[in-house]
């Protein structure tokens, strides 16, 4: 029979005292929604993207720093971003038509090779766009957003970067040194991981604008800086289209024909998640053969969502000794209708 110990990760059983006790370090890991910094947008106000043809000024999300008496040990209060949400109060969120490019300013970390359509990476509060690799956003760092309206007039938007915020400086830790050590070790693990792994969105190197029933080949280059692990596909387009992806160098395909936007591609709210992720080595190029199926001019915004791995391949002889594969053939999906990647730490 399940007990509170099994279902509540915030408490633990003390067998000596025969009582439940709170796990303090978990109570200092709180949900948090981060929006634009007040330096750019007054609190509660929307950000206005000007009409198509004009670029919006860069706008930022700043991860604040907080501490008490230096108890944070210079770790501040970092945020593990787990999903992205937006609202377009002018055009309507479902019809939002603007592009976005994100980079982290301090580290000049790029999250995409080119701007992507907002509805391929940002979801809604009802269906947030889950990051398959959370992003650990360190205090006093800033994310810069460049928005551009694709068509139509100016629009007002809001965003939220949702996740878990760590508070290693809570004064109650003075009475709980083990809990303090636990939360600090988690943060340090994140700090290690974020050096090597980062969320990434890959799109075609150039914009896709097809004539009626036309076919075009568009390349998406994985930069030389890291490997790209693709978890699935999202797209926004004027009309239906078909897509065939192959790797240019090896000619390896991941489909025996052409999928369509309807049967093989999702959007940020309902992404098409691969049964197995697709690892594309650094410097490789994907060729996307895209055909319009709508019979009218078609603007296609394709986004391949995943993560960038800034870490080299190991030799096969090394890894066979290090790791054992797991078998998934017998696993059913009844209990996991949406195969989501749990937070790795």
């Amino acid at each position, binding site marked *: 029979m399940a007990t509170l110990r099994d279902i509540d990760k915030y408490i633990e059983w003390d067998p000596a005292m025969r009582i439940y006790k709170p796990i303090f370090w978990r109570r200092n890991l709180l949900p948090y929604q981060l929006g634009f910094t007040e330096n750019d947008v007054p609190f509660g106000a929307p950000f206005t993207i000007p009409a198509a043809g004009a670029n919006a000024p860069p706008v930022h999300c700043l991860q604040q720093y907080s501490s008490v008496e230096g108890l944070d040990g210079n770790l501040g209060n970092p945020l593990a971003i787990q999903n992205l949400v937006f609202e377009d109060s002018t055009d309507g969120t479902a019809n939002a038509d603007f592009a976005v490019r994100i980079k982290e300013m301090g580290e000049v970390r790029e999250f995409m090779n080119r701007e992507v359509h907002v509805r391929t990476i940002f979801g809604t509060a009802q269906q947030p766009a889950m990051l398959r690799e959370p992003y650990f956003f360190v205090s006093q760092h800033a994310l810069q957003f460049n928005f551009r309206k694709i068509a139509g007039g100016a629009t007002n938007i809001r965003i939220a970067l949702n996740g878990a915020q760590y508070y290693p400086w809570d004064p109650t830790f003075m009475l709980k040194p083990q809990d303090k050590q636990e939360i600090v070790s988690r943060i340090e693990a994140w700090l290690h991981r974020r050096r090597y792994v980062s969320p990434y969105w890959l799109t075609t190197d150039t914009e896709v604008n097809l004539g009626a029933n036309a076919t075009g080949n568009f390349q998406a280059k994985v930069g030389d800086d890291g490997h790209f692990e693709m978890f699935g596909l999202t797209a926004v387009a004027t009309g239906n289209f078909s897509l065939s992806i192959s790797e240019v160098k090896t000619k390896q395909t991941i489909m025996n024909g052409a999928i369509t936007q309807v049967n093989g591609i999702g959007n940020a709210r309902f992404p098409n998640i691969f049964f197995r992720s697709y690892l594309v080595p650094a410097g490789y190029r994907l060729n996307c053969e895209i055909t319009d199926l709508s019979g009218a001019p078609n603007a296609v915004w394709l986004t391949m969502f995943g993560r960038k791995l800034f870490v080299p391949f*190991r030799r096969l002889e090394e890894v066979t000794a290090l790791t054992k594969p797991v078998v998934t053939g017998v696993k059913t*999906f009844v209990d996991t209708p949406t195969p989501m990647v749990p937070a790795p730490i």
Partner: protein
Amino acid sequence: MPRVETLIQEPSGKIAGVDPRRLYDLPFALLTNPPNNFVAVPANSSSPLTAITVSGEGPCEIANLAHEKLGECRVSMQIQDGETQRGLMNRACHIDTIFGSGQQPYWLPESLYIDELRSLIINFTDLSGVANQVAVNMGAARYLALQVDPYMEGIRKRLEERQYMATPYFYTFDPGVAVIPAGGTLTSTITVGQRDHFQLHTLTVVATSMAFDIQIIDVARGESLIDAPNNTTRQVAAGVILGSANFPYKFHTPRLINIGQKLDVIMTDRSGAQNTVYLTLGGRGITDKMWR
């Protein structure tokens, strides 16, 4: 299918590298063989049998089903193995009960492992009354035979042997469809085949109207499947127990229906009009005796 983690982590948690075996372990969209990615279905009739072939690169493990179509249709699938065909359903099912969309595919309760150079055979029967086109997409993983890792190859061999012991399976009414008279009650049957036990995982439906009540009874046991076992006379509203391929109703725990058993499905219309119901029980067939 064997699977390895992409990132190699040391026991300390330090990220030590990327596993090169992941280069031989790919996602794959398995489609009807080109140039038939879209299968033409004549109005009110059936399409030709169309092959979905796993090429010689390596075996495939199908995990989910999605589709695009112009109009309503039914779908029938079987595995072709040499001269033998092994069905994956008792009758053709409505496509909207087992094939979802790219955004919300239907995740199979049991993945379907298919060796290289084997085929699935699929065909469609139009229900829309006009010329129809259907494109299916089976979300899969691909294991390239080029890969040379003895441990993974050993696991693959085990799965190869296992593929005849458990496969995804779908049951619909023995007659294929149930038509409930306006305001009336209809009892239809579903008979589990003689080859496999059936483990029921999901219920999906397409109906003229969801305003009907339903009860499913395991005839041999005299037990209800969807209400307290003894309440065989009580029906529940279809809307609380039947989903769609995109959002199937999933049983909290699967239910085993033994080989050759019969289910009675009792339906009462509440819409006041004739109600055509395509019900699909999704799950897996568990082989009673190895057939090869």
